[in-house]
């Protein structure tokens, strides 16, 4: 992919800058704020820019907001990426099997996909977390549970056209096993349009995680932006910054992921149009 073309679009540049910042926050969190971000750091409800040891102030229990913001970036990114990876993995495997096998297998798999797609995704996630209990991996699974259907549909459509290509017939002529044909010859060629979905899925996953945490269904042992917003809600009138700061972080992250993803997709499309 041409990096120059990618960075010609200001939106893409903005997206990557935000993503870079987010990544830097996530990576440096344990270095800059080595202690437990859930531990009490100072007097409660300290306003931002009052004390330079606690630049963004403290919450109702006296926890460092800036430390929470950094550690929250870690959680948001981890959940977003893991959930997107899981949904794309599951979705493309299901889509490939359905499209390649055809017939009854296809029919059954696609009806299951339909079923998952008709139930609102957030309800599914909510249901799983409340049944299994909140932990980071359950939250990831809960998000992936509703997000895999998009990749599955796109992978299937792509596979339907790719399986008729001559190189697939060639693989059969040399005696390759159908499963190997599906996953070595067909799937890799079906993947690019599926991967184009990843930014949307990451962005949605970050939001869903925040929403779950807001409802108190996030991993209780981790700082999350959703949890911070919920924390601040009780004192929304007297200390709005407690909800506003993580809220802004959330908005920027989702925007950043989305813009960067769009930029990549567009520059690849431009390259393909040129080739």
């Amino acid at each position, binding site marked *: 992919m041409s990096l120059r073309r990618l960075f010609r679009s200001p939106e893409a540049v903005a997206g990557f800058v935000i993503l870079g910042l987010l990544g830097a926050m996530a990576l440096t969190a344990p270095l800059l704020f080595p202690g437990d971000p859930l531990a009490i750091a100072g007097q409660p409800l300290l306003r931002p820019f009052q004390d330079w040891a606690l630049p963004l102030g403290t919450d109702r229990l006296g926890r460092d907001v800036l430390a929470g913001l950094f550690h929250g970036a870690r959680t948001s990114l981890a959940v977003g990426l893991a959930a997107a990876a899981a949904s794309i993995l599951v979705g493309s495997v299901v889509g490939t099997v359905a499209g390649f096998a055809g017939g009854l297998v296809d029919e059954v798999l696609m009806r299951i996909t339909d079923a998952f797609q008709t139930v609102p995704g957030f309800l599914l996630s909510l249901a799983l977390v409340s049944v299994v209990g909140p932990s980071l991996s359950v939250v990831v699974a809960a998000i992936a549970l509703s997000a895999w259907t998009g990749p599955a549909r796109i992978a299937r459509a792509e596979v339907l056209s790719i399986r008729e290509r*001559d*190189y697939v017939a*060639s*693989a059969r*002529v*040399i*005696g390759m096993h159908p499963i190997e044909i599906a996953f070595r010859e067909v799937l890799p060629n079906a993947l690019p349009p599926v991967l184009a979905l990843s930014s949307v899925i990451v962005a949605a996953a970050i939001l869903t995680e925040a929403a779950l945490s807001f409802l108190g269904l996030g991993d209780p042992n981790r700082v999350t932006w959703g949890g911070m917003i919920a924390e601040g809600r009780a004192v929304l009138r007297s200390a709005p910054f407690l909800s506003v700061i993580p809220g802004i972080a959330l908005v920027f992250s989702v925007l950043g992921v989305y813009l960067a993803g769009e930029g990549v997709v567009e520059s690849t499309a431009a390259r393909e149009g040129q080739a």
Partner: protein
Amino acid sequence: MSVILEARNIVRDYHVPGSFLKKAKTVHAVKGVSFSVEKGKTLAIVGESGCGKSTLGRILTLIDPATSGDLLIEGKKIDIAKGDLTPEMRRKVQIVFQNPYGSLNPRQKIGDILTEPLVINTKTPADERRDRAMTLLKKVGLEEKHYNRYPHMFSGGQRQRIAIARALMLNPKLLVLDEPVSALDLSVQAQVLNLLADLQDEFQLTYVFISHDLSVVRYIADEVMVMYFGEAVEYGSRDEVFADPKHSYTKTLFAATPRADVESIRARLAKKKAA
């Protein structure tokens, strides 16, 4: 002379499933075709688009099963629907497709494309596989440095050479060539046809050459079979068929092809003058 390939009454029906507004129907693509090919000879299958040539080619290469009829390779009956296909049988028949842009997996290097048939069907060690691939690359007029490149770095004619090399990796007895030159420029066509003729001599190959181009057929065929709507309407030696076409379709087919020899050009000129 030994017969390499014998087809008895091959039939292939496609069932096109109906949908909401369309009724399901059956396409009779091949309607009972019989022929045999002797070792080292070339059978050309000619006919207009949609007459079932490729369908027949895929049956001969054991990609798709026939609906009914018998296929014998070196006198041994093969039924892939029964799943009794051994690697030894697989190796005997290989195929080269029409579209050089669709027959090579765009995500595989040439080296992998070439060695894959050996990996799947033999226990040849890696260095021997590589040696054989290099030898065949040179045989088909390419170079060792092409081993590590991807298909998109080659022209159509070069890709067709790669496809031919891949088909030869397993030392097959029979090569099905499904319009192997019709996607190429005229000058490149001649080169590839010469290559095929050389390879046939060198490796004692038997060809089933599918084409709709009579000048190509005249050049390469020993025997000719003309297909018309799934039926073999003419079958005999090249000279018989070209000298004395029996079926009315063959006559129109021959009449529609402008002949390029001096006499027919003279005749055409004379006709023009007379008019």
